[in-house]
């Protein structure tokens, strides 16, 4: 057991740092540091830069173009990226559907989909949740009925993040008879979003942004060879994926960076008499979050270490999601507090390209409330924190 980076790891850290200095576009990193939404083109641009470097498939097996990094390398990479203000890659292709395809897909599907995902030539979105199937995902109603070489898909998916940009959607659909037990009737199907019988309608969230959508399928014909694995196995595939996904969901590296920035903000927020950081109550709140984050970082490292010694991350990875989102939301709240009155103005246009009007308040304050509102989603999505709590209760504690 030891904590130090090896000489090779330090060298790797330097390499990542240098790469980010040279290749991360400044307009992108400054947007990330200000908590602004990126355009589709900016995400794609960054992911293609990563791909050119061979660093797009962080968790992928080497045979499919993955990096083959150790968990320590991934940890270093995440931290350096967050510090530099690199955006997260959009997870739906690279981190969500790709692992299902390379783990459970057939050879033809791997050939057909993986290279374009790795190169960010296609934009994927996720079709899981439905109006009646949120926490109870297995209660989903979208059907895919086999008709010759095709499935006919009907239904509506919701909370489809960035689906307005998507070329493809991976869906959980009901293939079995209505009488079949929920989990055994669910299949994993890939659907081309450019089908004219698919319509996407926006859902505006409380921060005024358009991130999520409803996706409607009306008699959409999908080639049967877009089915991953076997019919009725979709639930199993999705579950494997979710457990693996929960590691990244702790968001330790970005939270660390946001705490550093928050402290800088509180150091410079000066009413002429004292700095905000000199306020013992505020300083204590920051410290409590920092301490919690340190503990979470080592919880995540323990999970990563288990994976690297060949063990699968267990249900305890639910801890990462619960605590990680509590910390995100705690930091959000302190940003609002630090911004004081300037947390209130809603002036999104001041960050748009070509805006030449008067900026309202300091940049660090301007999106604080919107980020606080938007990130309420983090304890709801990806299996709400209540569901994560149930998982720990059942699977870990045996209650």
């Amino acid at each position: 057991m030891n904590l130090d980076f090896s000489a090779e790891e330090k060298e790797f850290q330097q390499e990542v740092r240098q790469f980010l200095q040279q290749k991360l576009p400044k307009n992108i990193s400054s947007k990330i540091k200000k908590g602004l939404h990126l355009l589709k083109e900016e995400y794609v641009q960054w992911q293609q830069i990563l791909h050119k470097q061979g660093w797009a498939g962080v968790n992928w097996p080497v045979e499919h173009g993955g990096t083959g990094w150790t968990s320590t390398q991934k940890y270093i990479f995440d931290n350096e990226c967050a510090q530099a203000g690199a955006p997260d890659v959009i997870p739906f292709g690279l981190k969500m559907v790709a692992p299902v395809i390379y783990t459970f897909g057939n050879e033809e599907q791997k050939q057909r989909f993986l290279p374009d995902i790795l190169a960010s030539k296609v934009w994927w979105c996720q079709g899981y949740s439905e109006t009646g199937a949120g926490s109870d995902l297995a209660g989903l109603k979208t059907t895919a009925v086999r008709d010759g070489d095709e499935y006919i898909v009907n239904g509506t998916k919701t909370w489809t993040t960035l689906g307005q940009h998507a070329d493809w959607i991976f869906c959980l659909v009901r293939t079995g008879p209505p009488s079949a037990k929920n989990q055994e009737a669910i299949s994993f199907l890939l659907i081309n979003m450019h089908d004219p019988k698919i319509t996407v309608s926006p859902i505006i969230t409380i921060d005024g942004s358009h991130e999520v959508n409803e996706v409607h399928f009306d008699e959409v014909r999908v080639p049967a060879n877009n089915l991953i694995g076997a019919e009725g196995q979709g639930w199993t595939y999705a579950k494997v994926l979710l457990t693996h996904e929960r590691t990244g969901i702790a968001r330790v590296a970005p939270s660390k960076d946001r705490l550093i920035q928050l402290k800088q903000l509180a150091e410079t927020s000066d009413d002429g008499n004292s700095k905000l950081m000199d306020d013992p109550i505020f300083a204590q709140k920051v410290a409590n979050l920092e301490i919690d984050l340190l503990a979470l970082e080592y919880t995540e490292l323990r999970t990563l270490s288990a994976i690297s010694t060949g063990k699968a991350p267990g249900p305890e990875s639910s801890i990462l999601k619960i605590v990680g989102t509590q910390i995100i939301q705690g930091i959000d709240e302190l940003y609002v507090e630090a911004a004081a009155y300037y947390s209130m103005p809603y002036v999104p246009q001041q960050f748009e390209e070509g805006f030449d009007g008067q900026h309202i308040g300091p940049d660090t304050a301007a999106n604080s409330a919107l980020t606080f509102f938007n990130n309420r989603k983090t304890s709801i999505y990806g299996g709400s924190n209540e569901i994560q709590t149930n998982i720990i209760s059942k699977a870990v504690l045996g209650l």
Partner: protein
Amino acid sequence: MDFSLSSEQQMIQDSVSKFILNDYDFETRRKILKSAAGYSQDNWSLFAELGWLMLPFSEEDGGLSGSMADLALVMEEFGKGIVVEPFIATAVLAGGLIAASGNQQQKDLYLPKIMAGELQMAFAYAEPQSRYHLNNVKCSATETQGEFVINGHKSVVLNGNNAETLVVAARTSGDTQDNNGISLFLVDANHPSVKREGYTNVDGHQAADIWFDNTPTLELLGDQDNALPAINNVIDKATLAVCAEAVGAMQIANERTLEYAKTRKQFGYTIGSFQALQHRMVNMFIEHQQAKSILLMAVLKMDSNEGVDAKAISAAKSRIGKAANLVGRESIQIHGGIGMTDELDVGHIFKRLTTIQYLFGSTDNHTKRFATA
């Protein structure tokens, strides 16, 4: 001791409550938010007609001599509809300062127009560096040949974009943080030397940042150099007003959450049947009740002391801020994804409950003031 409402108070409550139910449903509010002014002049005229705008003013000044308890009743009902009309900015803050500090001529000029719903005003006090310190005033008013001109920048002035006349706190002597040396001025908001950047706040209320560049003042309001006590008083009153609004907003947040929990089914059961969620909704209920209680305490103290009790007000703002925080967050969480959407009212209630926590001093600020007052 008797906490029941008088028949007059019952009437005020009924009339505001009726207005919220019949004329201020969520869709109507949404339309108001989308309108150019961001508030409804029709509603404003109605507020005047029903006497609500007269409530904060004394009978001597042509008002109804409403108590803090009366004002709190109106605000609590406003909270249930998350009303965006600038009642606090015009009637409580600017109007309150004129009533407290103005001479007869000034009162005669402004108060009848405010009460008739014919004048929008705003109080410009906060500045980019001032956080919540009311004595922290950089904005200067300098006298040349008997005339004052104002220079400086005021931030997030509530109703600042719609106001025709501003009350501006400016420094006539001393340093930025001195308690003495602050004066109030009436300023024509449309004067060419006044630059206003208007916007909507995240809670739907209108506001503006305002820059004064050698702006002539209309008049000094109250004593020169000695405006801080009046400013403190009026902000304290506005603080209790938003506390009351929060109590009303929390009630609706809790009602919506309960309704949802009783109808939303997952895993074959209503989510309200899950004990883990039941206990959390009980906590939300307790928070709302505690908030209601401490509001009552502060309101009654203000009415009985004929003045302001800093400790009581800060106790209320601190405790209600804490309650608003929990109720706001939990109502979104228990609603799940649907609570995140712009089309449901609960998210808008959450946003107002959030901004109230940071208006007129944050929860922590007031806890601190309670401890030291």
